């Protein structure tokens, strides 16, 4: 069998394995999520936590109070991560590393609080174990729980009738962390450990190699961080090489497991949605939209990477620069598409070294709004907003007042949804444009940051802002982002790209919750049929294509079509 056929076979069977596993857990996990967020009973440990935190778990919040709680919790969380980095020298297990500089600390604190996990720094030589576990791991858990909470609040808004409240943030945060993320992470960490992911506090160790040289071997509590950073679609690596590092992802089977872990909760959330609104068909329609986008992007990326266009891949014989031998092209591409289709941003291969068009696919995947299947929570609320736009457009076509799940889509909802879909593109395009439009910044960006000059360099900058604004965290990692400009601009992009959409979604949730239920009529567009699935996919592609085509034409398309 030639290399092309075997790569397609390996990739196809890897994908099939992941899909079958996700399908098997879809209903139980989705229903478990629905139960978690609708149950009236608190676990004993949760009651203890509510007492410590000082909240009444039986009360519900208005959308404004819910949003205020999220912002308060995130501000304090961000300050904690910032302070841990600044005080690194006095913390235990700091590996004698210096305090992290102010601007980098700001960027990293913003990054982990927003579930982005963009890393301007090289973790191998920047962060000791205490900052990693007490700062980053904690945010890996709670920022994921925040995303899930927002999605749940929106679903409640659709399910509630004439309600002034949308749930209690502190309860959603606690249950998401204690009942969902902790048990799955513990299990995931132990399986990864068995596969060879390290978990120790040994620090750096010098060894004499077979050839008589000295080699440094790193240590660290990696497995515990590895599990939650995937399950919570965070993505920040313990090491610079992220999931390409053999101590993070040692084998082909751990690679499949990692892909599975990062898709696990996002792909089950539509089931939770269907169960909570009392119509599981609605959830399946959402899964169909996510699945169609995922398959299309994956197939395109596979074709480009296996094709291996470009001067360097052609000369080498295959696009293996920046890919691990044990994953090959197939195991790298599936990971790359799964990580950018969710908001994970972990990488097991270097996207910067992909073929021009192959590298455009992870970028495009993020530009779609990360809804295939999206981050934990963020994917579901993202696709629900896009569904509302699709319902509205369908309503315009037939001249009726649109409704979704018995809720009227009025000017209020459309304003909120439109603002939602404008936030990220505005951040991406303005951020990228400013990087070249301000002369002093441009000099720094071109002189210091860009690694591959020319059109590929533009793609590096575009990828950075797309990743930050969509809270992904992956990179065209040749870009030196540890500069004042990128640390500040990307930090702001991450914060606005996270919290503006969250506020808009919560406002949307509040506006839906306050409405009564309108019964479906002959004129209501059914939102569980293939027609609606196709319409939503079309809307997503149209919105993305119109927004980003010009800048893609200047970057990856130019590079790929010229070569």
């Amino acid at each position: 069998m030639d290399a092309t056929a075997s790569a397609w076979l390996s990739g196809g069977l890897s994908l099939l394995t992941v899909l079958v596993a996700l399908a098997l857990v879809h209903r139980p996990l989705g229903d478990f999520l629905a139960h978690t967020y609708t149950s009236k009973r608190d676990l004993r440990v949760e009651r203890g936590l509510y007492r410590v935190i000082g909240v009444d778990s039986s009360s519900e919040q208005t959308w404004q109070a819910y949003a205020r709680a999220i912002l308060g919790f995130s501000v304090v969380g961000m300050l904690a991560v910032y302070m841990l980095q600044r005080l690194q020298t006095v913390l235990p297990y700091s590996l004698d590393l210096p305090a992290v500089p102010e601007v980098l600390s700001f960027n990293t604190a913003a990054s982990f609080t927003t579930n982005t996990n963009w890393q301007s720094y090289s973790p191998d030589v920047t962060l000791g174990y205490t900052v990693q576990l007490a700062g980053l791991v904690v945010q890996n858990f709670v920022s994921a729980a925040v995303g899930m909470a927002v999605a749940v609040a929106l679903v409640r808004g659709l399910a509630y009738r004439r309600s002034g409240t949308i749930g209690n943030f502190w309860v959603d945060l606690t249950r998401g962390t204690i009942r969902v993320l902790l048990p799955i992470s513990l299990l995931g960490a132990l399986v990864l450990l068995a596969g060879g992911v390290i978990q120790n506090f040994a620090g750096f160790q010098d060894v004499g190699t077979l050839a008589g040289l000295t080699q440094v071997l790193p240590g660290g509590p990696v497995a515990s961080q590895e599990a939650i950073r995937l399950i919570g679609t965070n993505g920040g690596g313990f090491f610079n090489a992220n999931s390409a590092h053999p101590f993070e992802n040692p084998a082909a089977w751990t690679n499949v497991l990692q892909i599975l872990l990062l898709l696990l909760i996002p792909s089950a959330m539509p089931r939770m949605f269907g169960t909570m609104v009392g119509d599981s068909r609605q959830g399946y329609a959402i899964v169909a939209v996510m699945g169609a986008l995922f398959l299309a992007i994956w197939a395109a990326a596979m074709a480009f990477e296996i094709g291996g266009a470009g001067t360097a891949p052609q000369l080498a014989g295959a696009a293996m620069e920046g890919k691990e031998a044990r994953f090959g092209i197939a195991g790298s591409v599936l990971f790359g598409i799964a990580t950018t289709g969710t908001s994970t941003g972990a990488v097991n291969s270097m996207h910067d070294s992909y073929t021009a068009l192959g590298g455009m696919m992870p970028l495009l995947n993020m530009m779609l709004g990360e809804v295939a299947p999206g981050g934990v929570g963020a994917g579901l609320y993202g696709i629900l907003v896009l569904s509302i736009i699709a319902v509205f457009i369908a309503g315009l076509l037939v001249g009726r007042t649109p409704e979704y799940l018995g809720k009227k889509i009025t000017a209020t909802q459309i304003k909120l949804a439109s603002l939602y879909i404008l936030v990220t593109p505005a951040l991406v395009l303005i951020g990228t444009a400013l990087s070249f439009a301000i002369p002093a910044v441009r000099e720094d960006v071109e002189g210091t940051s860009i690694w591959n000059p020319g059109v590929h360099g533009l793609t590096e900058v575009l990828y950075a802002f797309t990743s930050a604004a969509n809270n992904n965290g992956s990179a065209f990692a040749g870009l030196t982002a540890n500069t004042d400009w990128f640390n500040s601009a990307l930090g702001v992009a991450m914060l606005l790209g996270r919290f503006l959409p969250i506020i808009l979604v919560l406002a949307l949730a509040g506006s839906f919750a306050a409405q009564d239920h309108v019964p479906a009529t002959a004129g209501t567009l059914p939102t569980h049929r293939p027609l609606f699935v196709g319409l939503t996919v079309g809307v997503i592609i149209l919105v993305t294509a119109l927004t980003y085509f010009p800048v893609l034409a200047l970057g990856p398309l130019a590079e790929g079509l010229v070569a």
Partner: protein
Amino acid sequence: MSTTRTTTRTLWVSLRAVVAFTVITGVLYTAVVTGIGQLALPSQANGSLIRDDEGEVVGSSLIGQPFVDADGEPLPAYFQPRPSAAGDGYDGGASSGSNYGPESPELVAAIEERRAQVADLEGIAVEDVPADAVTASASGLDPHISPEYAAIQVDRVAEERGLAASVVEDLVAAHTTVPPAGIGGSPVVNVVELNVALDGLAG
């Protein structure tokens, strides 16, 4: 006034929540995983270390090593790993890929040079040099090579060590991992373990 009070209260609740979750998900969770790892899976938890007969650590079976002399020239008695962009090569404290793009002149030049070197070392035509032999991995610590790259090194290693080629071929086969049905990745040969086994034969 009431807004200020609400905000203050939200921040106070937030602070206690951050502290509580730091204890649970940061400290306790990490401690439990570390405890179980060190008790039940100590070999994996500590980096799959390889020790020589005296018990000295000579490396990790998961982390690639350079098999070169002090001048950086490949040692012909050892199987050679892939090129590495981690530090000066296989620096375990600086994992990294090259991040060169597909049109990078530096990458094209590096591939040209590596192809010539490998072809020269193995006595084969440049067209027959496999892709993984001339490209840097994503981590710079890749312990593996493709079975194709291992195959072209067998004769050289066998000759240098005065072994029959079939003995070396058997060792290569014993250190080849083939993922079932290609799920998750590609077949690979672990260079570090293979070279340890070769040195073991001599002793």
